[in-house]
C-alpha cells in the first residue's frame, strides 16, 4: 500500500510550509486558527494531516489552495512552491497554479458539485478554461478521465446530473475534475468521511492507484487513523493550530510520543478492543480566540506536567524523521507509560519498533 517510505531516494521537496500563522477576524475577536506550523511535502509521497475539527487542518489546505475566507489574516510565514511564496502572489498569478498545479478534492461530494449542471460540463469546464482546448477534444479527455476513475458507461453518464449519481460515484466525478489538468499536488480534504465503508475502501484504492500512475504528491486530511495507516507515508498530528507530532506512519503508530496522539489512538474502538470503557478525551478543544498559555492540550491531558501549563513545549527530536512537541520528552521529565490501548497497538509494531 502507501507505506513505501522514500528513504533511499533523494527527497525532493515540492512544497514547503514555514512558520505559517493565520488568524480570522470574527465578531468575538481574533481567532488564531493556525499558530505557526512547519512542514515539507516530498515529491511522490502521501502526507496525512490528522486532527479533530477546529485543529486547523482544513485551513492549512485552503491556505495552500489560496481559498482562504475574506476575514482571514496572514500573520507570518510562507508556503514555498516552485520558488514562489503562495501567500504573497497576486490572485491573477494564482489562477495559473490553482487547479492546474495544485488540485483539491473536497469533503462533501453532495455539495461540491453544481446540482444544475451536467457532470460532463463540470469536468470539461476546467479543461476549456485553463488548457484552452476545444470543446470536442475536451469531451474526449473527460470521457477518458471518467473511465480512469472507474465510472461505467461514461458516454451515458457524461450527460447526467449529479443527483443521478450515488455518493461514491459523485466523489469519483470530483476526483476526475481534480485530475483534469494534470496537477502535481493533490489535496484531499476528508474525501471519504461522507461515504460508506465499502465505498470508502474503493475511493482510497482509486486515489492510491492514481497517485502511483501519475506520481502525485498527496496531502491527505482526515480524522480516521485507520485511513492514515492505509494511505500515508508520513503523518502530521495537529492540535489547536499547531503540529504536535510528526513522523513516518510507522513511527506515529508504533512509537507515538505525544499524549494527544495516544489519546486519539486510544479513544476509538478498533476490532481488537476488549476493554469495558474507552479512554475518551475529556472536554472539548480549546477556544482559539484566547489560546491557552503553555501546551494547548494540557487541559485535557491526564499526563500534563506543571510546566505544560506555563511554557509551550518545543518540538523534541525522536529520530531523524520523527518529532513531537511534549515536555515528556525532556530529559528531566518523569517516565510515563502510554494507555493500554496504545501499548496494544505498539506491540503489533513489535520488531519494527526496536529498529
Amino acid at each position, binding site marked *: 500500500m502507501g*507505506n513505501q517510505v522514500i528513504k533511499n531516494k533523494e527527497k525532493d521537496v515540492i512544497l514547503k510550509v514555514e512558520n505559517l500563522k493565520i488568524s480570522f477576524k470574527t465578531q468575538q475577536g481574533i481567532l488564531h486558527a493556525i499558530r505557526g506550523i512547519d512542514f515539507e511535502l516530498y515529491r511522490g509521497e502521501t502526507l496525512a494531516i490528522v486532527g479533530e475539527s477546529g485543529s486547523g487542518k482544513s485551513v492549512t489546505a485552503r491556505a495552500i489552495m489560496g481559498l482562504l475566507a475574506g476575514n482571514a489574516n496572514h500573520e507570518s510565514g510562507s508556503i514555498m512552491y516552485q520558488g514562489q511564496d503562495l501567500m504573497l502572489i497576486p490572485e491573477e498569478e494564482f489562477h495559473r497554479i490553482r487547479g492546474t498545479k495544485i488540485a483539491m478534492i473536497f469533503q462533501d461530494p453532495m455539495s461540491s458539485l453544481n446540482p444544475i449542471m451536467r457532470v460532463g460540463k463540470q469536468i470539461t469546464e476546467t479543461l476549456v478554461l485553463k488548457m484552452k482546448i476545444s470543446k470536442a477534444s475536451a469531451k474526449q479527455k473527460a470521457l477518458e478521465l471518467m473511465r480512469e476513475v472507474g465510472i461505467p458507461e461514461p458516454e451515458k453518464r457524461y450527460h447526467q446530473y449529479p443527483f443521478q449519481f450515488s455518493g461514491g460515484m459523485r466523489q469519483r466525478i470530483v476526483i476526475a475534475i481534480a485530475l483534469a489538468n494534470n496537477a502535481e499536488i493533490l489535496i484531499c480534504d476528508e474525501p471519504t468521511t461522507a461515504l460508506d*465503508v465499502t*465505498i*470508502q475502501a474503493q475511493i482510497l484504492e482509486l486515489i492510491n492507484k492514481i497517485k502511483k500512475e501519475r506520481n502525485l504528491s498527496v496531502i491527505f486530511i482526515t480524522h480516521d487513523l*485507520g485511513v492514515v495507516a492505509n494511505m500515508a507515508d508520513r503523518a502530521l498530528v495537529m492540535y489547536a493550530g499547531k503540529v504536535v507530532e510528526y513522523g513516518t506512519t510507522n513511527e506515529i503508530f*508504533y512509537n507515538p510520543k505525544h499524549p494527544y496522539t495516544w489519546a*486519539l489512538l486510544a479513544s476509538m474502538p478498533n*476490532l481488537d478492543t476488549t476493554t469495558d470503557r474507552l479512554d475518551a*478525551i475529556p472536554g472539548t478543544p480549546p477556544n482559539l480566540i484566547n489560546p491557552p498559555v503553555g501546551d494547548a492540550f494540557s487541559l485535557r491531558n491526564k499526563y500534563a506536567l506543571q510546566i505544560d501549563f506555563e511554557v509551550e513545549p518545543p518540538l523534541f527530536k525522536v529520530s531523524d524523521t520523527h518529532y513531537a512537541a511534549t515536555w515528556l520528552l525532556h530529559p528531566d521529565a518523569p517516565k510515563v507509560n502510554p494507555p493500554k490501548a496504545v501499548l496494544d497497538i505498539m506491540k503489533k509494531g513489535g520488531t519494527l519498533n526496536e529498529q
Partner: protein
Amino acid sequence: MNSKKKSVIDYNHKVLEVRNLKQYFKVGVGNRRMTVKAIDGISFDIYKREVFGLVGESGCGKTTTGRTIIKIYNATDGTIKYNGRIIGAGLQGDKQRIRELKQNRKLEIIQQNPLKKKIYELKQKAKSDIHVLNDDINKIRVQTEVEVNKLKAKPAEFSNVLELALHRYETEKNQVLRERKIKLDRISENDIKDAINMYNKTINVIKRKTVDKSKYIKSLQVNKEEIEEAIEEIKTTEVENLNVAKEKLLKTIESLDPKLVSVYEKQVTSNNPVKYVAHVDLKSEIVKNKIKEIEDYYEKVLVKLKSDYDVELNEISKNKPDKQELKNSINELKANAKQKIKAIQDKINKIKQETKAQILQVKQDAKKEPNKFLVNQSEIDKVKNKYKKLIQEAKEVLREHRYLNKIKETPKEKRARLQKMEELKEAYQKKIVGLSPEAAAREKEAYENEIRKLNESIPNYANTMSTMQMVFQDPIASLNPRMIVKDIISEGLIVRGERDSKLINEKVNKILDIVGLTPDHATRYPHEFSGGQRQRIGIARALITNPDFVIADEPISALDVSIQAQILNLLSDLKNELGLTILFIAHDLSVVKYFCDRIAVMYFGKIVEMASSEELFKNPLHPYTKSLLSAIPQPDPIYEANRSRVVYNPSIHNYTIDKPELVEITPGHFIYANNEELAKYKEELGIK
C-alpha cells in the same frame, strides 16, 4: 465480553419481536411509478438489557427499520411486538391471505363438480401453452429490435468516425498554423527591434561624422565662404542619408509586418546622412530567407497532414455503409420476425380453437351421460362452510391488526374489558348488601379504583410508546433551534400529560446531570452547544420518559473523533445504570463490535447474517459480511499493508430454483442462504 458488563441480559424476556417486517415505498409517477423494497421481510428478537446492532451500507434499510419500529412509518407487512403487544402490523399479508383463501375455495369447489373441473383443466392447459408462446413472441420482438437498432446505428457511427477524423485533422492543422504564426511573429518582432537598433546606431554615426567633418573643415585655414559652402553641402548629404535610412527602415518593417509601419514612423523622426542602408537591406534579406524557410517547413507539414488525413479518409470510407443495403437488411429482419410471429400466432389461434372444441365436446358428453358428471353438492357445502369460517377468522385478524396498528383497543379487547367491568359491578353490588355505611364506602372506593385501573389500561400512544425512544443521527438537525433545551427535553413529559412545572424542572435537571450537562444549560438554545453536547441533549430528550428501549440511529457518526468516545461511554454507562435495551444502528463495524452484544448485517432490505458480535467477527460466513469486514481500515500500518479487500458480487448467488431463507446454522448464528449454500457454509465451519 458480556460477562464484564454490569447489566445482564435476560434471555427469557423478549422486548421486541419483529416478524417478517416489510416496508415498501411507492415512488415516482406515471410510467416511472415503482415500488422500492426498503425492508424486505426481516425477523429478529431483542432481549431485555441487550444491545442489538444493525449494520449495513447506506440504503440497506437500517434506518427505515428503526423508524418503522418506532412508528414513524406504518409497516407494509409483518408484525412488530413490543413487550408482548403488537404495536405495528402491516396489512398487506392479511389481505393476501384472504385473497388466497378465496382462490383456494374456488378451486376446491370446482374439484367437486366434474364438468367444471374438466373445463377448468382444459382452460388452464391452454392458458399455460399460450403463455409460453407469448413469451416466445416477446423474445423475438426484443431480439429483432436490438438487431435493427444495431443496423440503424451504423450510419451514425460512420459519420461519428468521419467527424472524429475531421476534428483530429483540424485540431492538428490549427496547432501547426498556430505554431507557425508564433514563430513568424517572433522573427518579425526581433528583427524589427534589430532594425531599429541598427538605425539608431547608424544615425548616431552619421551625426557624429557630420560633426567631425564640420570640425575638420573649420580647422582648415580656408576662407569663410568656402567653409560655409562645404558645411552646407555636408548637411544636405546628411539629411539625404538620414531620409534614405528612414525609408529603408520603414521598408524593412513593412516587409516584416505592414501593420507596424505607422507606429514606427512616429518614432523615426530624425534625418541624417547614412551609410548603413546596405546592412538593413541585408538584414531584410536574411529575414525573408528565414520566413521562407519556416513557411516552407510548415507547408510541408501541412501537406503531410493533409495527405495523412486523405489516406485515413480513404481507409474510413471503405467501411461506408450502403444505405440501400442497410434498408434491405432491416426490412429482411423485420419480415423474418413478422413471419415467425405470424406462425406462433397461428399456433395460438389453433390452440384456442382446439380448446373451444374440446370444451364443447365435454359439454355434449355431459348432456349425453349426466350420470358421469354428477355434482357432489354436500361436499361443496362442506367446503363452503370450512372456508367461510377461515375467511372470517382472517378478516378478524385483519381488523385486529388495523386497530393495533393505530394503537387502539381492538373490539375483542373492548368486549373483554366491558365484560370485566360488568362482573366487577355485579360482585360489588352483591358485596355491599347489608354492610355498614363505612364498610360500604371502603368497598365503593376499592371498586372505583378497579374501574379506573381498567380504564387507564386502554392502550393509546402515550402509555404504549413512551417507553420506546429514539436518538437521532444528526444532533444539529434533530433539535429545534427555536426551543430552549428545557423545552426540548421536557416535551415528552408534556405530551404524556405531565403539567406540574416544578416536577418537570426537577426531572429535567436530573436528566441533564445524568448525561453530563449542568442545570444552567437548560435555559440555553441548541446553537450555543458543541456537537457532542447537542448529542447529549438528544440523549437526555430520549431518556426523560424513563424508557426501557432506545433506538439509537447512528448516534455518533456525525460527531468529532474525540467526542465519539465520550458519547459511547455515556451510552454504555446509561445502559448499565438504567438497564436499557438498545437497538444500535451504525455503519462503523469497529464501534458495533465494541458496543453490541448481537449484530445483524443488512443488505438491500434483508438480514443476511445475524450472530453474537464475537461469533460474527470470528466466523463471518456470508460473502457480504466478509467484504464489509475486509473494508474496515485499522490504525495499524502493517495490518493495512497486508489487508486485501474482498469484493462482494451479489450475482454469485443462484436463487432461481432453491429459495434462500434465514436459517440458524449454529446456535445463535443465523445466515441467509439456500440449502446448497448452507452445506457449503457448514463445511466452512467444520460441522457436518
